[in-house]
């Protein structure tokens, strides 16, 4: 299929024939006892952007996977451009002009942009394959849609924003008339997000229709014509964006009004841990830290903004004891640390909430009890002279379950059965119960539902008010702005100066995230 040919196919000129380009009729999907989609119907019109809103687990991704043929619905049907779409067939969805940009990119790092886009359309080794013509068409598409990317570049060398553009180009190259974007802004800076929205507006102007999946309300308000809200697998609301506001949408998503946790002015105390001129080695394409100096003060939340893969991992590893700096010094109070290890960090009173609660924070097949004592299994009362005291461990776990309202079958249940929010609450209980002085919160609310997010944030603020020094790392700039007393930006391993709460706008922080603030600093210094 080429772009020239597409004009000849009546189905792909839907503006006249089918004003409704896509229709989902009572889609129902069950996973065991879970009703992921409950008779959901939606209609997408030509040239329209609709937003699919909902908390994690509301059924957004399931619905889109059914539409795209990754799953087969138990009941219901999909109609694209007036023709029914055979279920469970991604190829048919592609052929019908539906393109999906997944949250996690599906690109081959070692191939060029052009090769990635051609991949799957035909063999890269097929005779007469004209890479040049393809590259020309890709260049034309990127011009038309404002998707700046070099067709000859290797994908491995591209930034996250560029990779997303490649994904979109991939869909456009296959003549997608309907674009589905699953949480497209989760990994972008505010500037990249704005550029993406420009692209979407152009696409709509050129007659495409877009389904935009998100949970960021202000973005949805900015880009979508209509919002559909899913909750627990049901379609609970459908409104024109013009007739609603963020609060109403949030209430619809959660089913109740939710107030974001209030942050009173901080009363910072002394620096509890200091990083002085600390560097770490680069890890392949991920930069290490470049001579950063950072103090974490008692009673203060220090937010670390930045696009992921700019050194957050390295800083998190240092604070949690997994790594030591290649140069520079870490000191606790005024004592330089020696023999730095996870155990030393725990003993120094550092509570560590890891980025990946499934792989790093918990052991999936261990019980809640075994997970709750994971950091202190070797100490009294859980262990005496090499023997475990399971009664003490169970008592502690029962206490954590009660104080943090963890929904679970009991302390002996395997933790893999818990939802992300309850899992995170157990980790929170594990690290907060001993009353830590320093807290590392690395992406503490990613992937949680709003109820759990509010809970985690309240606990962190309470710990701050009790005098803990907190380092909050997140890719979500809104979360950083909302939760931090002080903000640093990390870009390519460099740490920005500290910005007070409210000192910088999101757009200004975005410039730092993209590295521009640093260049200005350097030129001013020079």
């Amino acid at each position: 299929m080429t772009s020239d040919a597409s004009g000849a196919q009546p189905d792909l000129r839907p503006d006249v024939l089918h004003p409704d380009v896509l229709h989902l009729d009572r889609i129902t999907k069950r996973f065991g006892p879970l009703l992921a989609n409950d008779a959901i119907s939606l209609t997408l019109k030509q040239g329209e952007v609709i937003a699919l809103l909902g908390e994690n687990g509301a059924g957004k991704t399931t619905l889109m996977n059914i539409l795209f043929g990754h799953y087969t619905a138990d009941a219901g049907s999909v109609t694209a451009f007036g023709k029914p779409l055979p279920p469970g067939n991604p190829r048919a969805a592609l052929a019908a002009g539906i393109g999906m940009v997944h949250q996690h990119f599906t690109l081959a790092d070692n191939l060029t942009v052009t090769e990635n886009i051609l991949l799957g359309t035909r063999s890269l080794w097929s005779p007469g394959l004209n890479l040049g013509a393809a590259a020309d068409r890709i260049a034309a598409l990127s011009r038309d849609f404002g998707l700046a990317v070099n067709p000859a570049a290797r994908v491995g060398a591209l930034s996250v924003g560029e990779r997303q553009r490649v994904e979109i180009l991939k869909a456009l190259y296959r003549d997608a008339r309907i674009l589905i974007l699953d949480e497209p802004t989760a990994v972008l800076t505010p500037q990249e997000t704005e550029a993406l929205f420009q692209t979407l507006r152009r696409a709509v102007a050129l007659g495409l229709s877009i389904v935009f999946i998100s949970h960021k309300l202000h973005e949805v308000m900015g880009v979508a014509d209509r919002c559909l809200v899913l909750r627990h697998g049901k379609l609970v609301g459908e409104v024109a964006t013009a007739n609603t506001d963020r609060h109403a949408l949030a209430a619809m998503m959660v089913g109740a009004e939710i107030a974001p946790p209030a942050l009173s002015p901080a009363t910072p105390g002394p620096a509890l841990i200091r990083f002085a001129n600390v560097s770490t080695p680069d890890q392949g394409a991920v930069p290490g830290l470049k001579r950063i100096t950072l103090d974490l003060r008692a009673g203060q939340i220090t937010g670390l903004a930045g696009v992921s893969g700019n050194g957050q991992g390295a800083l998190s590893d240092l604070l949690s004891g997994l790594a030591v700096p290649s140069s520079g010094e870490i000191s606790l109070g005024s004592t330089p640390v020696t023999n730095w290890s996870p155990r030393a960090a725990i003993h120094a009173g550092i509570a560590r909430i890891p980025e990946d609660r499934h792989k790093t924070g918990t052991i999936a097949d261990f019980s809640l009890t075994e997970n709750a004592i994971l950091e202190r299994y070797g100490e009294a009362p859980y262990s005496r002279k090499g023997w475990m005291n399971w009664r003490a461990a169970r008592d502690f776990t029962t206490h954590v379950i009660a104080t943090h309202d963890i929904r679970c079958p009991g302390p002996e249940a395997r933790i893999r059965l818990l939802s992300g929010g309850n899992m995170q609450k157990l980790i929170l209980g594990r690290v907060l119960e001993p009353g830590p002085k320093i807290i590392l919160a690395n992406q503490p609310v990613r992937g949680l539902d709003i109820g759990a997010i509010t809970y985690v944030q309240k606990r962190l603020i309470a710990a701050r008010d009790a005098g803990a020094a907190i380092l909050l790392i997140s890719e979500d700039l809104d979360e950083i702005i909302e939760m931090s007393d002080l903000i640093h930006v990390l870009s390519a391993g460099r740490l920005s100066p500290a910005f007070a709460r409210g000192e910088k706008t999101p757009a200004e922080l975005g410039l730092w995230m993209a590295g521009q603030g640093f260049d200005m600093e350097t030129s001013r210094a020079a």
Partner: protein
Amino acid sequence: MRLEPIAAPTLARRLGFPAAALALTILVASLLALTAGANPFATLGLILEGAAGSRFAALETLNRATPLIFTGLAISVAFRAKLWNIGAEAQLYAGAIVTVLLGTGLVPWPLVLPVTALVAMLAGALVLLGPVLLKTRLGVDEVVTTLLLNFVMLLFVSYLLEGPMKDPGGMGWPKSSPLLPEARLPRIVEGLRLHWGFLLALLAAVAVWVIQTRTTLGYEIRAVGQNPRAARFAGVPVNAVLVKTALLSGGLAALAGFSEVAGLKGHLSLDLSPGFGYTGIIVAMLAMLNPLAVIPSALFVAGVFVGSDSMSRAAGVPTYIADILLATALLFMVLAILLTRVRVVRG
């Protein structure tokens, strides 16, 4: 098709699938017997009779199960920590060599058995220490090193039996001098061919179970095996735990060698182990790495071997049927264990 984990498997599910696996194993064995031209019912009956049909047969099965319990435990301890010890055979022979060295006059009477057992364990532990240090320090795959050490050890034993440890009164056969009577493990009941090694094996199974469920080391071993990344993050000294696991595993495998030499054979020869180290892997897997379940698992495997030997003599069906029986039993059982935990769903 995909697999969906089941939160709480029902009792019917947990018993039904293993039972079906057993039935399928018997079906495969029957078909094999048929192709060998024998009556399948008679063949299976003969295997059962040969394994447990008489006091002699039952004792023979218990004797054969003894080293399998030790190697099964050695494997289950190591595999729990995801330490792939394929070298139980070498560790077994290390224990056997020590047993002969100390049991032919080096250690005096009241001490000889406990000292020999302990030093044998130490020797087996040391054989596994090399591969595990290579793994923790340099990232060398222990599957390769432990497996290859088996052949190194067999050649070393061969050298010893042809050279320094050769029995002067052995009429040229490659075997060691016999142990002194006081270095032998006594019979449990006088007149019955069952020695204290069997009780020692049962004791070892209980001890390993206690270690795994009740001690801090057991918790560490399980944590490292299930998720080394989370274990390391939480401050578990992963490498130290792997080394301790290796010492325990190697020591247990060496006890198999000690028990076979001191309890059964009375000397060391190259046919001491018909692959007990490898069969221990089957034993451990059938037991789902549970140390207490290693006992029935070893009895089952031993019964199949002993029963098939006896059946082969009576029915003329090749004894290879034992190997095929065990292999199919293992395959079906692994599948059955999987199916008790997950269900297969379409789409």
